[in-house]
């Protein structure tokens, strides 16, 4: 699916090495993402592995999240290849992760599924935002704006995977370039 490139709303702030067990604990991996009601349920468990001192991520009564933007530090998404991780974020209603760097498989799964944009920040944004701050991410201009004071932070261009992201995921991309039939 192709997503809006201007994302506005409150941010959920995390730091370094947010692993896939935090993103979606293994006890929920019995849910199959391609079954629609289980996809939705995965969203309600997004970031359920965080210590209880963190505010609940998917805190809306319907199991979705009030935070469309997730901010992280280095090595976001490290650990397992479970595609349930980006899917849980996307199913909860998050549209973009902005982190200093990503673990390879998580980044790839974000791109392949088209569930969330995995964008790299130039600077350590987890020190510039706190959970609940309003922000606007502009994926075309490569910026994130802190709406309380209008401060603009640069994002890195998405790079070689841009065509896959623009197409809306691996299958859409492969069809667009004729790798597989329409």
């Amino acid at each position, binding site marked *: 699916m192709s997503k809006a490139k201007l994302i506005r709303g409150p941010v959920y702030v995390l730091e370094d*090495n947010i*692993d896939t*067990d*935090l993103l979606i*604990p*293994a*006890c929920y*991996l*019995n*849910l*199959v*993402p*391609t*079954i629609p009601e289980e996809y939705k349920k995965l969203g309600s468990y997004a970031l359920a*592995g*965080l*210590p*209880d001192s963190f505010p609940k991520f998917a805190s809306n009564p319907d199991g979705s999240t009030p935070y469309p933007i997730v901010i992280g530090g*280095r*090595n976001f998404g*490290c*650990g*397992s*290849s*479970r*595609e*349930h991780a980006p899917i849980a974020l996307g199913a909860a209603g998050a549209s973009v992760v902005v982190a200093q*760097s*990503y*673990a*390879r*498989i998580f980044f*790839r*799964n974000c791109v*392949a*599924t088209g569930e969330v944009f995995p964008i790299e920040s130039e600077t350590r944004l987890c020190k510039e935002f706190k959970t609940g701050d309003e922000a606007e991410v502009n994926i075309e201009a490569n910026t994130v704006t802190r709406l309380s004071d209008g401060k603009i932070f640069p994002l890195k261009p998405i790079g*070689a995977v841009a065509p*896959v992201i623009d197409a809306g*995921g*691996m*299958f859409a991309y*492969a069809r667009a370039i004729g*790798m*597989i039939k329409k």
Partner: protein
Amino acid sequence: MTITEKILARESGASIVQPGDNIWVNAGILLTHDVCGPGTIGIFQQEFGKDAKVFDREKIVILPDHYIYTADVKAHRNIDILRAFVKEQNLPYFYDPGTPSYCGVCHVALPELGHVRPGETIFGTDSHTCTHGALGAFSSGIGNTDAGFIMGTGKLLVKVPPTLRFVLDGKMPSYLSAKDLILHIIGDITVDGATYCAMEFTGSAIEALSIEERCTICNMAVEAGAKNGIIAPDQKTFDYVNARTKKPYEPLYSDRDAKIQAEYRYDVSKLEPVVAKPHLPDNKALARDCRDVKVTQVYIGSCTGGKLEDFIMAAQLLKGRKVAIKTLIVPATRHVEQGLIDTKIDGQSLRAIFEAAGVEPIAPPSCAACLGGPIDTFGRTHGNEVVVSTTNRNFIGRMGSKDSQVYLASPYTAAATAIKGTITDPRDL
């Protein structure tokens, strides 16, 4: 070119590839299991149609292993999804739980079954698919969408990784194992020190390691962020592979002048047993510096530390001794489970050694508590347990409870700790 580049070049039809190239690579094997298989099948059917056929029946291996011994209804439903798909597609390599063909942990079973061959490509819906580079294959973990894509096309878009070379020389000291070597390396380069890279392990100390110990090293490459771990095949590799498959293969090797991104050198004779403290695999400390850590549970199992040689190491220390704390033994596969009976130290089977030492009843093979899992999973933590484990990850909540703490260690250190009840350097026994 490096061995990684050469394999990717051959499987993409190119004569030369360079790090950073994005290329379509043929999949030699697609591996999946019960946790990611149903989602992969779902994507395959959604994208290619209900009547679509897999790209090559001979190249798909399905090894359920994660949630096998549980009352969880969805876990059983998921295995039923695999069964239905295997039947519909007539797939030959499905190792069904509850039948004699069941094996257990996929990354220990895949080479055991002869599905890993030097010079080939393996993609698997599990991050520890990097294990199989130990036999000179390019092997990497992927998500369901990429796996569904491979299921239909036999190909995957791959970015060629730059190579980090780790040269390990010197004689292995007593009670040091491959697990210590890889924990040392991850501790040094950190959990993102190899992100997007190939980790190539070489040197006389690697050559001296058994195939199983080489698997332990490559298994944890992903804990440093690597795309793949790889070891050049040698006679040990060929003997292991040829005993398990008749399929032909063509090994590849790094050129002497291959361009690499960085080289790290180790003299293993100077290394000591280590643990990775909570909650990251790079949180390295010498085992002897953690003597004051009281432990409530020892876990020996998983694709990292549940192979036959892991249990031989543990049994060497547990023989004639008693465990002081709850000690859990989970053989990775049926083959390993049988090995506990057939392998003897001074006439006593490993199983008898463990039972005499007072371990918990030995669990049947599966991933079990390595990744927590359903609430009734064997060995899963439920409170503030302090665990010393031969597994691969010690993230918060990894083994179940967010309040438990996991120290990663070698089978020697785990067994020594089981005997003492505090973290123990195995040389101190």
